[in-house]
């Protein structure tokens, strides 16, 4: 059974190879091939899942050794896979949601002449992402890690003729690279500390080394996670990443890739457990980001960017949970999965809306669409309810648990984190309600002559429906007598947090803030009409519209500074380093030019020189003989 693991990765890889090298002859069938391979790998995933369920909880860890990849001295990296409950969860999420989005894209990208390429990239992404979650050592994980980065680069910049898209893609890749730096340094640290960087030995040996080293490793891993999962301070790329086609945003920048950071931290749980300081950093990042993202989400009028903000904040929740240690890992993953469902659904919904509104993204140009695209409305609505944590829907379960766990951290820290989480929930409710209202309710703010809103074709709606179903029931399913937690426990050693406040209180509080948020949003956007052009807004609003000025900071400090630095360096290289050399050359030339004058051509001046030479020789000989 282990041998299927490789196939899991291979299938989409083959698809990508076919589609990208296949050439024009595959233009007509490319999308089908791509979807086929995605579904195939999903099927394999299901088969493996069944196999795992068949086994006892303890031996649910499969290994597949392919070949020795790099082997130099003590440095040994294998191409080997490890499939355990954690990976399995991701595999199902990735391939499942991935397949759905492939199918959705068939319709969404119908009119794009480069559709084949698009599916090729999607397959490439699937392969890389699966490699990421299936790797059995950090270096192989790193391969997948950068692979998904590449795929996201290609997909964000898919419409390359738009400079904005190209720039966004470049930005995403660069910011990710900063994160990757962290990951590679972490790997090096592991190598120097443990002499290996395979999950098994490293995580087993955390006890034997100093906490300082572990903290360093942890922080580096956190840096990596920040890059990939768009956490503060490396979050700036996610908003721009919305330049990509909507299915991409749904798959990569909502459901799967951006959650890789959570996977990394959860996977390295043993390290973090042994390094409390690193954990503090993690939860801090998580808490800050969940508020940051939420605030940004409130201010955006571009529907996708609003959703991007929300993604950021939801991942903030997960990171927060992951930072809490064993009491949080399971819930982090759980929220990750549920979020995968409803956020993907929301994005697909947004995509469907744009599809019907000829690619208008400004929510202020929407309004009253519920009658025009009912399916989209319903699925989107369900996703909305799920994300704000409406009781009974999946978001409710996962997020609620996280908030609980945050309180359970204990002490003032617990209170702060819990408070932040609660606040986040409130804001979430607010901005999601805002999105909902501005899009589907209220009066039409679009020009009926030019735009004719219509429901999307089946091939697009069906995936949305599936995801909606998932976002409704997944949470419940998982939390029925803690199925999910038990399932993950062998990997992420679960322990119950002892919250100072009882679970019911937390739930009640969540409900309260939920109602508050919704109510406020309704008061602002439901009762009175929404202006078609954005009002100037408060200082905070304006800051939030600009991603809380983080981009401006980057621009001024990094971009400008970098430009000046390079320009000066180029100048110096020419004038100083090169100038020195050329200077010597020039002086030589001048000297020879002067010497040249001795060649007057007059025999007698030559004769003088000869006589002088002779005199010198005689003098020399005399001196030699010690006169």
């Amino acid at each position, binding site marked *: 059974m282990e041998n299927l693991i490789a196939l899991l990765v291979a299938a989409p890889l083959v698809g990508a190879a076919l589609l990208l090298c296949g050439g024009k002859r595959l233009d007509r069938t490319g999308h089908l091939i791509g979807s086929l391979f995605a579904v195939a790998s999903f099927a394999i995933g299901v088969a493996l899942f069944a196999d795992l369920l068949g086994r006892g909880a303890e031996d649910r860890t499969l290994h597949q050794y392919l070949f020795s990849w790099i082997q130099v001295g003590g440095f040994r990296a294998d191409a080997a896979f490890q499939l355990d409950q954690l990976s399995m969860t991701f595999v199902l999420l990735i391939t499942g949601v991935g397949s759905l989005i492939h199918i959705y894209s068939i319709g969404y990208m119908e009119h794009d002449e480069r559709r084949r390429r698009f599916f090729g990239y999607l397959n490439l992404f699937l392969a890389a992402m699966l490699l990421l979650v299936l790797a059995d050592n950090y270096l192989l994980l790193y391969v997948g890690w950068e692979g998904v980065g590449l795929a996201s680069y290609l997909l964000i910049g898919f419409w390359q003729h738009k400079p904005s898209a190209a720039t966004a893609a470049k930005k995403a890749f660069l910011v990710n690279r900063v994160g990757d730096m962290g990951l590679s340094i972490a790997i090096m640290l592991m190598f120097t500390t443990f002499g290996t960087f395979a999950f098994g030995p490293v995580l087993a040996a955390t006890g034997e080394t100093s906490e300082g080293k572990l903290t360093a490793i942890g922080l580096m891993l956190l840096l990596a996670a920040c890059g990939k999962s768009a956490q503060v301070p490396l979050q700036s790329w996610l908003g721009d990443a919305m330049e990509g086609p909507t299915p991409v945003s749904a798959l990569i920048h909502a459901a799967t890739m951006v959650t890789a950071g959570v996977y990394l931290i959860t996977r390295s749980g043993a390290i973090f457990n042994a390094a409390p300081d690193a954990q503090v950093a993690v939860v801090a990042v998580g808490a800050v980001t969940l508020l940051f993202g939420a605030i940004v989400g409130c201010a955006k009028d571009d529907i996708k960017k609003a959703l991007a903000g929300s993604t950021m904040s939801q991942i903030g929740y997960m990171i927060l949970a992951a930072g809490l240690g064993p009491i949080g890992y399971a819930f982090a993953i759980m929220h990750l999965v549920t979020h995968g469902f409803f956020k993907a659904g929301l994005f697909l919904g947004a995509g469907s809306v744009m599809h019907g509104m000829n690619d208008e993204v400004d929510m202020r140009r929407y309004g009253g669409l519920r009658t025009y695209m009912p399916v989209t409305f319903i699925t989107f609505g369900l996703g909305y309810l799920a994300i704000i944590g409406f009781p009974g829907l999946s978001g409710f379960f996962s997020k609620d648990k996280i908030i609980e766990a945050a309180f359970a951290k204990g002490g003032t820290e617990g209170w702060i984190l819990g408070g932040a989480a609660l606040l986040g929930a409130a804001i979430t409710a607010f901005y999601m309600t805002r999105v909902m209202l501005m899009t589907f309710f209220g009066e039409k703010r679009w020009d009926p002559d030019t735009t004719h809103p219509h429901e999307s074709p089946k091939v697009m709606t069906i995936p949305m429906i599936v995801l909606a179903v998932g976002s409704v029931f997944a949470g419940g399913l998982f939390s029925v007598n803690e199925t999910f937690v038990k399932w993950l426990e062998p990997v992420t050693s679960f322990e119950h947090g002892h919250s100072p406040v009882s679970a019911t209180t937390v739930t009640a509080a969540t409900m309260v803030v939920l109602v508050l948020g919704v109510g406020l949003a309704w008061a602002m956007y439901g009762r009175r009409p929404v202006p078609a052009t954005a009002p100037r807004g408060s200082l905070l609003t304006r800051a939030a519209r600009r991603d809380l000025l983080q981009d401006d900071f980057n621009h001024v400090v990094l971009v400008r500074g970098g430009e000046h630095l390079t320009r000066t360096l180029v100048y110096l290289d020419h004038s100083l380093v090169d100038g020195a050399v050329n200077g010597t050359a020039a002086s030589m030339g001048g000297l020879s030019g002067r010497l040249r004058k001795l*060649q*007057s*051509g*007059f*025999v*007698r001046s*030559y*004769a*003088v020189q000869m*006589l002088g030479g002779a005199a010198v020789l005689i003098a020399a000989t005399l001196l030699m003989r010690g006169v």
Partner: protein
Amino acid sequence: MNPVYYLYLAALLFTIGGAGVLIRRNAIVVFMCIELMLNACNLAFVTFSRMHGNLDGQIIAFFTMVVAAAEVVVGLAIIVSIFRTRHTASVDDASLMKL
């Protein structure tokens, strides 16, 4: 008196000849100065052969004379042909030897 004085005389003549080569522009005179220098050398050789009490020095002087004769013949021929073409015997006018 000590035959070394012949050497001093030779040195003196040699120097005078050299100076002449340097300051005269007329090629013929320059040649004469060269001859003067050669003769100075010969004198030195002869004196040396007397010092060492063997004839090798004189032999050298003899060869020097032969070579000098040959040199003069060719040199003067050159001067003549130069004079024919350029109507001058000044060495400064033959200054094409520069870059």
